[in-house]
């Protein structure tokens, strides 16, 4: 049946975000995801004040004890409280996840949109550049970055963003290629709008759906990539930690001290599910074409 047979007329106008919020509020899963994510963020923000122990506080005599009343999530081999370490790790992981993804998002969306919109030879050259970057040896690239620029968290964001934007650019480009044939883009063109304004106002906002979905998939992989880079020496250094690193260490001892793997794993999975539910909800909510039913 054709969709326009059911038209619900809203009485009062709503902004895109208001509208999205109204729709989001009706999506229970998305709300749960949002709530979960917010509480994780709040916990992370408050960690310095609410963490039960110091994240570097060792007690070698209490090494690798299972969960107990004293240490709810047990201790690692240095006798450090796992709950505290997961809380501190969350600060790093969430920050890396969000910021690095935002970097990838910004570069990927703009690049993909420009390539897809202009098309033709420009598109071909831009996409071949993406091919080239895909092919470069990532590890050598990271090692070089580390050596040339020293180490800091900013560099970590840069390195991760540098990898993750490629796929984003491809997805956005595909979207834009189909969008630019739409009549409203032609209408904007006939109004005499400049190409940049058309890309910014008419093209990019309409790629939100797939971009949001891909973003929710990117954040977890960024968190795991962070662990790998920290392993190589780029990024955070012990005694600081992140979920990715905790999981990495946890895998090594998963038979002996399973709680060292399970709890950070649960933290990461919770974030993932929250993100996924929220992402799917947001995609639907932000699409003005779906009626508010």
């Amino acid at each position: 049946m054709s969709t326009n047979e059911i038209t619900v007329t809203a009485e009062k106008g709503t902004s895109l975000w208001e509208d999205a919020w109204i729709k989001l509020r009706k999506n229970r899963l998305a709300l749960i995801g949002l709530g979960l994510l917010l509480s994780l963020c709040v916990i992370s923000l408050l960690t310095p004040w609410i963490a039960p122990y110091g994240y570097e506080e060792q007690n070698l005599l209490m090494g690798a004890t299972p969960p107990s009343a004293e240490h709810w999530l047990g201790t690692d081999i240095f006798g450090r409280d796992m709950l505290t370490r997961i809380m501190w790790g969350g600060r790093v992981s969430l920050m890396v996840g969000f910021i690095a993804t935002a970097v990838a998002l910004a570069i990927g969306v703009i690049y993909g949109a420009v390539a897809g919109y202009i098309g033709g030879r420009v598109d071909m050259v831009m996409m071949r550049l993406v091919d080239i970057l895909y092919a470069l040896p990532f590890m050598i690239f990271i090692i070089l970055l580390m050596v040339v620029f020293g180490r800091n968290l900013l560099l970590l964001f840069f390195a991760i963003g540098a990898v993750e934007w490629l796929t984003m650019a491809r997805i956005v480009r595909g979207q834009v290629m189909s969008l630019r044939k739409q009549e409203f883009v032609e209408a904007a063109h006939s109004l005499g709008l400049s190409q940049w304004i058309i890309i910014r106002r008419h093209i990019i906002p309409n790629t939100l759906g797939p971009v949001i979905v891909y973003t929710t998939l990117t954040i977890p992989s960024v968190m795991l990539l962070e662990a790998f880079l920290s392993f190589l020496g780029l990024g955070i250094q012990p005694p600081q930690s992140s979920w990715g690193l905790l999981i990495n260490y946890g895998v090594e001892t998963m038979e002996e001290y399973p709680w060292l793997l399970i709890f950070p794993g649960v933290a990461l999975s919770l974030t993932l599910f929250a993100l996924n539910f929220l992402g799917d909800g947001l995609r639907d909510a932000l699409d003005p074409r779906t009626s508010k039913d």
Partner: protein
Amino acid sequence: MFKFALGRLLQAIPVLLVVITMTFMLVHSAPGGPFSADKAVPEEVLKALEAQYNLDQPLWQQYLSYLGDVVQGDMGPSFKYPGRNVNELIMSGLSTTAELGFYAMLVAIFIGVIAGVTASMRPNTMQDYVPMTAAMIGICMPSFLLGPLLVLVFGIHLEWLPVSGWNEIPGDKIMPAITLGTGYAAYIARLSRGGMLEVLSQDYIRTARAKGLSEFLIISKHALRGGLIPVVAFLGPAFAGLLGGSFVVETIFQIPGLGRFYVQAAFNRDYTMILGTTVFFATLIILFNLLSDMLAIWLNPKLRQQVRGDS
């Protein structure tokens, strides 16, 4: 089709050239040479070694002679394995990695498509949520975690499958393939669910239903072909990524594949080996993207007929 492929291959030449050039510069500017070791290497030995591999020449000269060799298909000798050249090392790893990638892809497609199609048939019901939640877990489950988990359960506790090796003990390919394929299976599940949902809302599905066809026929004959186009488009990059990303799995399961060579080469600053594998992977990425595009064309009768004329 031929013309299309040829055009794309011609485009690949400058891409590869830039990849070689940039990689060459990258590896030569990375700290630590191929011969540095924890025991100090005497100056005279270092000189002798560098002379053996032409590393004492100016960089541009090394670059040009490397380029000359590559054009003739010779990727040079390996620094790490004296006496072996990069070509034979890549070839020895390639067959293994390709086989691993192939099985992983089979696993990925098989599980992914079934899960995605099942989910798409009844969106927003348990039949949708269960496989899609599993897919979510699959996407996020890093192989460095999944691999050991599988090994502990099926290799050590149940003793059903060998915990490592390749082509030595029957069944030693199962766990690596699953470990490597799961992430992609999950991704394919999402893609095929999306594609199927799109197709199932098409008018021609309604037509098929109005004709009185069974639901099984509608899915398998009418919907699957269109619904899997996003999956096909994903296959090319995925297969290339699979080959490149097989390192972790190869390490967990002691598989003599290309991924391990690549990472070892990077850690060892085996310049020629890094360059060789990079060029090789770049070629693969280009080839597989091309193949997947060609498959997408072939699946679409309209495009297929347009290009049939000259193939």
